[in-house]
């Protein structure tokens, strides 16, 4: 285990015991994520992407193998508030304003009122929602709500961001815009991001490392280190390098399916 590893998984296994028998959500998963990496997890439904992310977040307990987050157990990392988790649904509280929603984790973690206000202002600016602090969630579009939920995960200084299909429910135009914003944000904050997605272009556009997974049992079939530069305008998606990486991801996904 390297010291500059944000997340390190060794031979991780997770089997759910269900009424229809055991489900092997993860089988022999090993992966090192370096600090500052942007890692995408891609694969068909049910290949264990969410489960893997939840293991990092200490929301699921692996049944075998080992995993560390920032060099410690996921539980210790969770208690140290080492990561922010963005769920697929924004999950904002309807009875709190956008500002109130973002300060919720800050209240829980015991930040002072003044510090809370300052942080809310800062992260709202970061996700380009300045001026929406006093609005209620229902007054915002789906994309803006999701940005607010990212702001909430950024408000306390976790250096890891775990994101489970955060833009899955949004249309493509909004999604492109948010992807661009997310890259800027990542460049400015130097966080480590683990990002689950269904979309090949999204994975290739965003990541420094792409992890291809396949189901039954959930496992990693390919890990691709992206040759793309850190600076990525949206039209990088038309370059040969981009298409080559996308092709390799597609091949990986197809290979995972072939032995069904």
């Amino acid at each position: 285990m390297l010291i500059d590893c944000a997340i390190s998984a060794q031979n991780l296994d997770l089997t759910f015991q269900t009424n229809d028998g055991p489900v092997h959500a993860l089988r022999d998963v090993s992966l090192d994520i370096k600090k500052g990496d942007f890692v995408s997890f891609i694969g068909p439904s049910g290949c264990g992407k969410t489960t893997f992310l939840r293991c990092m977040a200490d929301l699921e307990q692996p049944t075998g193998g080992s995993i560390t987050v920032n060099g410690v157990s996921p539980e210790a990392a969770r208690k140290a508030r080492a990561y922010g988790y963005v769920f697929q649904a924004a999950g904002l509280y309807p009875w709190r304003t956008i500002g109130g929603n973002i300060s919720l984790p800050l209240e829980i973690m015991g930040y002072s009122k003044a510090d809370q206000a300052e942080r809310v202002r800062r992260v709202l600016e970061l996700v380009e929602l300045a001026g929406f602090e006093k609005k209620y969630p229902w007054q915002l579009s789906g994309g803006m709500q999701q940005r607010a939920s990212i702001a909430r995960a950024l408000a306390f200084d976790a250096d890891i961001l775990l994101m489970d299909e955060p833009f899955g429910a949004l249309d493509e135009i909004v999604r492109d815009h948010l992807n661009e914003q997310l890259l800027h944000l990542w460049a400015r904050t130097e966080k480590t991001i683990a990002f689950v997605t269904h979309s090949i272009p999204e994975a290739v556009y965003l990541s420094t490392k792409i992890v291809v997974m396949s189901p039954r049992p959930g496992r990693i079939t390919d890990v691709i280190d992206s040759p793309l530069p850190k600076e990525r305008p949206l039209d990088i998606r038309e370059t040969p390098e981009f298409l080559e990486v996308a092709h390799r991801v597609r091949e990986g996904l197809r290979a995972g399916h072939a032995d069904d």
Partner: protein
Amino acid sequence: MRSVVPVLTVVGAIFVLWYLAAIWLNAPWAYDKAGRAGVTLSASELVADTWAQEKPKLPAPHQVVTEIWNTTVEKKITSKRSLIYHSWITLSATLLGFALGTGLGILLAVGIVYNRVMDRSVMPWVITSQTIPILALAPMIIVVLNAVGISGLLPKAMISMYLSFFPVVVGMVKGLRSPEVMQLDQMRTWNASSSQTFWRLRLPASMPFLFASLKVGVAASLVGAIVGELPTGAVAGLGARLLAGSYYGQTIQIWSALIMAAALAALLVAVIGVIQRATLKRMGMA
């Protein structure tokens, strides 16, 4: 405003039916009187008589309205014959019982949601408690409490509480459990304590459920307070008016007490509705 016309139509239809039913039900007594006096009744005389009897089987609406007017506006509030006085007696027991029932309901709901043993054991008893007819139970509660020296307001309030805690328990359990698994997981990622999760997530999420329950609960409380006045032969309260009315065949008095009780229930539900709207609006939920 558009809803006024249908409402008025329904009210009008009810009044027409009520007047017709009064003629039909009170006619035998009118014929009886006429027969004994040896006179025959014309149709208009019959109608006039059925709508103006002293102890009709079914009093006409205007008789009830007159009685309510006489016993509210025309009487001093402190008078034993004032319907306002009797309403207040019942209302005070209702409110006390409702407050106790709401408190008990919320406490039980919190216990059920947070304690596995209570979850398994309490709910069946809560449901069983509501299957016992309150009319059978009320005299026992009153007698037992009287035996230990408690009388007056509290026994009635206990019966109100008994009826009103039930919808509150059911609604609050549902409300406290309404946050999604995702929201609870999210709390866990922030390493929130149970009490932080309760005050910041579960409790606010339960508010719409609580208010729905409170509306049912307050109406049940009023029924409880009235029922609580029946077995003791209480001298005051809407229940006592109902009882006294039925002893002496004072149907007009019974009906005016009934209408007063209905109006009181409507008022209480409306007040909760107003509080609900104000609260949820302040919470940004309405």
